[in-house]
Each structure stands twice: as structure tokens, then as C-alpha cells.
């Protein structure tokens, strides 16, 4: 234990924070201060102080003053989690001329006062945590931050409104963007909607200009019908492989005239854009305003690909743009930052069998209804029953389908209340039918949302507070015959009601993308238990992730309405441009280095590095680590049998010393 027994010639200052009563409420802060002063003197503690708010400017000044006047060579601050204030105190120390890496934080708030109750035990634990860090910090080395240049290009994944917004902001800022979208056109879910709440302006009218701008912007490379295959590298220097799926249409030659679509003899149900409610040709552009304008040939359904005949599209194409031999191609791009705006999936209402979607013809999903209302939709904007003709005389709209329900999704999808109110308005406006809304709680908490609720009330929509129990076609009474019966407890009168209607609309909630987990792993970010991506901080850092250089925007991190998705797209863009403008990014100097004298060239470490930062130098028969590629995980350090690799910031000496400290008898 030699390295721990050497009496250090360091001068250490210990600073214990009250954090108001957050810490002081459960921990005897003064006790900890005095104990450190008395018992850690032999470890080099020369001063130990407490203060109400150590992170306040006064607290920081106190530390800076001590560094200067008492010549402190190490600073230990017992306060909150390093993820919150490590930077604060390291910068303070730096101002006083001390290398930032000679300051450490001890988390006695998140790890003690907030999670324990017994004051005596909590105080004792705080003492040993402080002891651990004091003994550890003796072995800390002064480190210099690594600087790496930032590639000014950005990858945006997902061409919904959030992704479009982010791309435009960055492109207008003068930097290049690769916008990748897996569908044939950008626009996302918003392109499927008819009207948008609460202003009721037409979705296409406000979205199309943005789509066109993104499609024509000199700084945006639009890659639709494409998917990201692999990502490697780190902030500032990612290299990404993108698969451009075969369109069977030569984008150089195609003018988007649409003759091929017109002439294509085969129709199939459109499960994507028309939500299964309409048909499309086998060669198609998903919708009129699609960007880009080039159609896509749906090979699995194409008669030619099935039995070698047809080729109608090719025959009629005036520019010979149809190319049946086209193959998927892989593009490699280098970018400095990546924004994930991968959006959401609609909850599949078939899962709630008691609502009969898929069994009862006139039960519609919310997306089906959006298409039903849409002038470009299958009925040209006519709201009809499944027969495509009959106008409904009474309509029931059911909230919280698949949301706020432990059998499906626990969370509130936030948009469904407003979406349902919008539906109520559209039904009234276009059919004059009687409209019922069945809700648990009315959640209209945003600018002019509740006013919209008031408006719908005024329009005479009948609201029933109660989660619908079942939708059934089994009539009990004559007047129920041929109708859909909505059975519900009207919780305000405490009685069960059976309400016959012609049409039921299920206001489905939002779900994480079915492949969100795989996508997350591809980019090295993780999902919450609900399956949404985790922000670095839910309040203060909502568009960045734990992985430097990977940002998230829009519904990728949870259900959002259009305004919030747009603001998040812009926010992410701002974060990216801030990084780009710094030209280079500072990386934590936590890196592994090989002591070539000690290295026996056994190569055990060689295959351990996921970032291929470890290279074996044949002629010297030693291993070397490229500090630019090394991410500092320390796996090789732990693996080296000769102890030849050392990891800065987390050396064996530091850890051993910390263990000793933590186990000191108090």
C-alpha cells in the first residue's frame, strides 16, 4: 500500500455545502467540516470550511481566495452531483490559477441527504465520501483538455417538421446539412393532417413552403428513401454510412411529370400516407406536394418484378427515367454533429379490442379520420362512414386510446385532447352531426388551447367525463339497432350510459418508433423505460443526449405538439451551430496511455477497443493508443496484465486511495 502511506505534500481545501437545507437538513454539515479538519490533516487537508450555497458567486470567491492565499494545490467540494456543478467549481479553481482537474466534487446531496433519513448515519456516510475523495485527489494529475477540430457538416435524421426546422436553421446559418428521411418524401406526420389546432390553419398550407425550401436549399443535401446504416467516430468527427434505397427512378432524368403514376395499371392499399384508408399506384409519389417530386417504385408489389411483364411506366416515361436495374447504394458522409428527429408511431388501436377497431367497420383511428377530412384524402374531404357514402348523424370521439393506461402506455400523449377537440369541430362543421367527446381529464394547457376548448363547448359538442368501457354492435334496445353503442359511466352523474352513434373516432396516442431502441443503439443513446430517448437533462438540456454530438428534437424524446417540435428543432440547430462556430471542441482529457517500457506486446488489449484507438506497432512490438480516437472508457487499462496502460483521471492509484478513504473507520 506504499502509494497510500506516503504522507502527501499537497495542500488540500475541503468545502462542505449546505445547499440551503437540501443537505444541511439531513447532514451535520459543520460536523463533516470539523471532522475533515481534524482527521484528514495527515492527508494534507489544511483548511475545511462550510457555506450555505457553495455554488453562489460568494462561495466560489471564497474558494478562489483560499487557493491564492493558502496556496491550495487540491480542492474538494462536498455538495451536489458532479454532473451538475463539477464544471462550475473547476472553472472557479482555474480562475485562481489551479488546474481544473485538481478539483473534485463529492455528491453528498444526490447520494446522501436526498436518499437517506437518519441524520447520524447520513453524516457518517458524508464523512467517508469526503475521506475517499481527499485520499483520491492526492493522486490527481494536472491535465490539459484535448482539442479536436469540428467538421462543419451536420446530419439530420428524420424529415418531419422538427427535422425540417433544424435543417433549415443550420442551412440558413451557412452550414451544410444532410437530411435523411426513410420515406419517399419529407413532411412526416404533419403532411398527413388536414387542419392544425388551435388555429385550424391548413397543415399543408403552412408545411409545404418549408418542405420546398428544404428541398431546394443549396446547403441541404436531401436524402429521402434512405436510411442510416452505421455511425462511427465521436463529436466533431462522425463518419456515417447511409443506404439510398433503389427508387427505380433516375433522379437526374425524372421531371416529376407523373405520367408513370397515371399509367401504372396496379393499385394497392396505401398503409403509409393514407393510413390504410386509401389506395395508391405501385409507382407513386406519396402525395401531391411531396418533396422531392420523384416517384418511387414499390418493387414487391410491382407486376414487372412479380412476373416479368408490364413495364407500363417505362414505356410512357418521356425522359426514360425509369430504371428497373437500379440497386441500393451506400453513401459515406463525414459530419460533426447529428440531430435525431425520428418522430413517433401512432398507437395501434387494434390492441384495445373492446373499442372494436378492425372489427367494427365504423370505428376509425385518428389518422384514418385525418385522411377522411383531408381534401386530398380518399373521400376528397367528405366525412363518411366506411361505405364511403353515408354521412354520419352522430359521432363519438374517444380520448386516451392507448395512453394513461397501464395495459398499454402509462404516459399522457399530450396532444390527444386537442386533437379530439379539433375532430369535434371538423365533424360539426362538415356534417352537422351530434358529437360526443369522452374524456378522463381535459388537458388543454398551452397558449390559446383552453380558448379552443371553450369554442368547442360553444359549438354544442356534448362532453361526457368517463373512460369509455366498450364500443359494441350488440343492440339491447330497438333504438340501438344498426348503431355502434358506446358504453360508458358518465362519472358526473354516476350512472352507466349506452350512447348509440353512427361513427366512432379513437383518439390514439403516440408511441416511440417500433425500432427506436435499435436506432438508439446505432447512435449510442439510450431510451427511457417508456422507449423515448433520454435527454441530457429533462428541463435544462432537453435537446442534447449523454453522447456528445448526438442531439434529439421533436417527438423522439416524447409526445409533443407541432409548436414544441418546431422549437426543439430550432433549439437543436442552435446547439449545433454553437459547436460549429467554436471550430474545435474540447474533449475531456480522460484518456488511456501506454507505458512502452512496461508493454510486453502481448496484444491482449488490441481487440478490446470499440473505437479502434489501439494499434500495435509491429517493429517495436509495443501497443500505442491514439488519444484522438480513445474515448477513455478504461477497459484496456483494466485488462493490461503488465499494468502498462494507465488511464488519466481514473488511475489505479486514485481508485485504490478512494477505496481506502471510503473504508476508513469513522
Amino acid at each position, binding site marked *: 500500500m506504499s502509494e497510500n502511506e506516503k504522507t502527501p505534500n499537497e495542500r488540500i481545501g475541503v468545502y462542505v455545502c449546505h445547499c440551503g437545507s437540501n443537505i444541511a437538513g439531513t447532514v451535520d454539515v459543520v460536523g463533516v467540516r470539523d471532522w475533515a479538519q481534524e482527521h484528514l490533516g495527515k492527508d494534507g487537508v489544511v483548511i475545511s470550511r462550510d457555506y450555505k450555497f457553495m455554488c453562489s458567486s460568494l462561495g466560489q470567491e471564497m474558494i478562489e481566495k483560499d487557493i491564492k492565499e493558502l496556496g491550495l494545490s487540491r480542492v474538494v467540494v462536498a455538495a451536489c452531483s458532479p454532473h451538475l456543478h463539477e464544471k462550475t467549481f473547476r472553472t472557479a479553481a482555474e480562475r485562481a490559477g489551479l488546474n481544473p482537474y485538481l478539483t473534485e466534487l463529492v455528491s453528498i446531496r444526490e447520494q446522501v441527504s436526498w436518499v437517506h433519513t437518519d441524520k447520524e448515519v447520513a453524516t457518517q456516510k458524508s464523512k467517508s465520501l469526503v475521506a475517499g475523495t481527499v485520499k483520491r485527489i492526492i493522486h490527481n494529475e494536472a491535465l490539459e483538455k484535448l482539442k479536436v477540430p469540428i467538421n462543419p457538416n451536420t446530419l439530420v435524421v428524420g424529415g418531419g417538421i422538427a427535422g425540417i426546422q433544424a435543417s433549415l436553421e443550420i442551412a440558413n446559418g451557412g452550414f451544410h446539412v444532410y437530411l435523411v428521411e426513410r420515406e419517399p418524401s419529407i413532411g412526416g406526420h404533419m403532411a398527413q393532417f388536414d387542419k392544425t389546432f388551435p388555429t385550424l390553419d391548413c397543415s399543408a398550407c403552412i408545411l409545404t413552403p418549408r418542405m420546398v425550401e428544404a428541398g431546394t436549399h443549396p446547403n441541404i443535401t436531401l436524402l429521402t428513401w434512405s436510411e442510416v446504416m452505421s455511425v462511427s467516430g465521436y463529436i466533431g468527427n462522425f463518419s456515417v454510412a447511409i443506404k439510398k434505397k433503389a427508387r427505380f427512378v433516375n433522379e437526374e432524368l425524372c421531371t416529376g411529370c407523373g405520367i408513370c403514376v397515371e399509367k401504372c395499371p396496379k393499385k394497392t392499399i396505401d398503409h403509409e400516407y393514407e393510413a390504410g384508408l386509401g389506395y395508391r399506384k405501385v409507382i407513386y409519389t406519396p402525395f401531391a406536394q411531396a418533396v422531392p417530386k420523384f416517384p418511387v417504385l414499390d418493387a414487391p408489389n410491382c407486376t414487372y418484378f412479380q412476373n416479368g411483364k408490364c413495364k407500363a411506366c417505362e414505356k410512357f416515361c418521356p425522359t426514360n427515367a425509369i430504371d428497373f436495374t437500379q440497386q441500393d447504394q451506400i453513401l459515406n458522409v463525414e459530419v460533426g454533429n447529428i440531430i435525431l428527429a425520428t418522430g413517433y408511431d401512432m398507437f395501434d388501436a387494434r390492441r384495445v379490442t373492446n373499442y372494436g377497431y378492425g372489427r367494427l367497420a365504423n370505428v376509425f383511428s385518428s389518422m384514418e379520420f385525418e385522411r377522411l377530412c383531408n381534401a386530398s384524402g380518399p373521400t376528397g374531404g367528405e366525412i363518411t362512414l366506411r361505405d364511403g357514402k353515408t354521412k354520419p348523424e352522430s359521432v363519438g370521439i374517444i380520448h386516451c386510446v392507448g395512453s394513461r393506461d397501464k395495459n398499454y402506455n402509462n404516459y399522457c400523449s399530450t396532444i390527444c385532447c386537442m386533437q379530439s377537440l379539433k375532430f369535434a369541430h371538423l365533424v360539426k362543421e362538415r356534417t352537422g352531426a351530434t358529437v360526443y367527446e369522452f374524456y378522463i381529464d381535459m388537458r388543454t394547457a398551452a397558449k390559446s388551447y383552453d380558448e379552443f376548448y371553450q369554442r368547442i363547448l360553444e359549438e354544442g359538442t356534448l362532453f361526457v367525463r368517463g373512460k369509455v368501457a366498450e364500443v359494441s354492435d350488440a343492440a339491447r334496445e330497438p333504438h340501438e339497432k344498426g348503431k355502434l353503442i358506446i358504453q360508458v359511466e358518465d362519472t358526473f352523474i354516476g350512472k352507466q350510459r349506452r350512447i348509440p352513434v353512427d361513427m366512432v373516432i379513437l383518439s390514439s396516442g403516440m408511441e416511440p418508433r417500433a425500432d427506436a431502441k435499435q436506432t438508439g443503439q446505432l447512435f449510442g443513446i*439510450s431510451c427511457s423505460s417508456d422507449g423515448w430517448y433520454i435527454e441530457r437533462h429533462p428541463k435544462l438540456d432537453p435537446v442534447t443526449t*449523454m453522447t456528445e454530438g448526438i442531439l434529439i428534437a421533436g417527438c423522439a424524446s416524447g409526445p409533443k405538439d407541432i409548436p414544441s417540435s418546431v422549437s426543439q428543432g430550432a433549439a437543436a440547430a442552435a446547439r449545433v451551430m454553437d459547436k460549429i462556430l467554436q471550430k474545435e471542441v474540447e474533449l475531456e482529457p480522460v484518456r488511456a496511455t501506454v507505458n512502452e517500457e512496461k508493454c510486453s506486446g502481448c496484444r491482449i488489449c488490441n481487440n478490446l477497443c*470499440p473505437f479502434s484507438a489501439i494499434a500495435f506497432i509491429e517493429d517495436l512490438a509495443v501497443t500505442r493508443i491514439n488519444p484522438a480516437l480513445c474515448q477513455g472508457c478504461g477497459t484496456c487499462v483494466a485488462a493490461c496484465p503488465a499494468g502498462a496502460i494507465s488511464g488519466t483521471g*481514473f488511475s*489505479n492509484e486514485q481508485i485504490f486511495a478512494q477505496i481506502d478513504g471510503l*473504508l476508513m473507520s469513522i
Partner: protein
Amino acid sequence: MSEQFEPVIIGFTCNWCSYRAADAAGTARVKYAPNVRLIRLMCSGRLDPTFVIKALAGGADGVMISGCHPGDCHYIDQNYKALRRVLLLRRTLKGMGVEPERIKLVWASAAEGMQLAHEIDSFIEEVRKLGPLGWPKWNETDHGSQTIDDEQAPVAHGQEAEVTA
């Protein structure tokens, strides 16, 4: 300290998932037993087996190693390496006459503060059942509340730890 045996647990967390899980537990004011003291590594892959031996030798009664869920590792797949090491280590300890149950591997994502707290509590209970780890007194860092049981503590342990540490 109360009558019942209070084990001391050293916990190693990775910087990205499990340490943040501990933060999350704090922010959410989830209560758990105070017997655990956490050490932050960058990745569970950094876990050097000697850390564990050292901790046990130094008076800890159990060691918890926690990292990101398989597939979620911030460093792609280094947590698998941690997994391998832990398995190996458990076998080694068994050979040394130490109950392998004194080492526990826990996966916790940054969102799983609740789960982590729960794991910590249950591990502490498991170790409490095992009773104190009977190392011979071999340096001043020996933990106060320990009772020494010479039979189940072959001297070799101390030495082994000396050597590796």
C-alpha cells in the same frame, strides 16, 4: 449502529448510466439504505478485478458493480467485458473461500433511479444475511463494526489482497 449487522458495500458505477441513475434516485428523493458508498468510473469496463479484491480486503462486505444495460453502453459494448470479468471474479473468490454472492452486477439506465435503489437495498439484505466478511485484521482501514471469524478467513486472503493491491 443498531444491533443487527450493518454491512459496508462499495459500489462501482459507470459515468453515463448507473451514476446518473444514482443522481436520478436522489432527484426523485427515492430512499435506500445508507450502507453503500459509490465510486464513479467512466465505464464498467474500467473495473479492474483488483479494485474488488482491494475493497473486500479493505473491509467492505460486498461490492456492487453497475453499468448501462447490455446494448446501451456509452462505449458500444464494454459493459459485456465487465460482465465477463465479474463472472470470472466470482469464481476466483469462490476459490479463495469468499462467497461469490458478495459481488453483484447491476444494469441500470440513467432513467432507472428507482430500480437502482431497489437493487441496492436487496443486495444489502443479501449481504446482511451472509454476515460480515471475516478477513483477519491486516491494516488500520479495517472496518469498525466487523467481527473476526478466524476459521473462515484463511490468512491467504490478506496476503492475496496485499499482493494484488
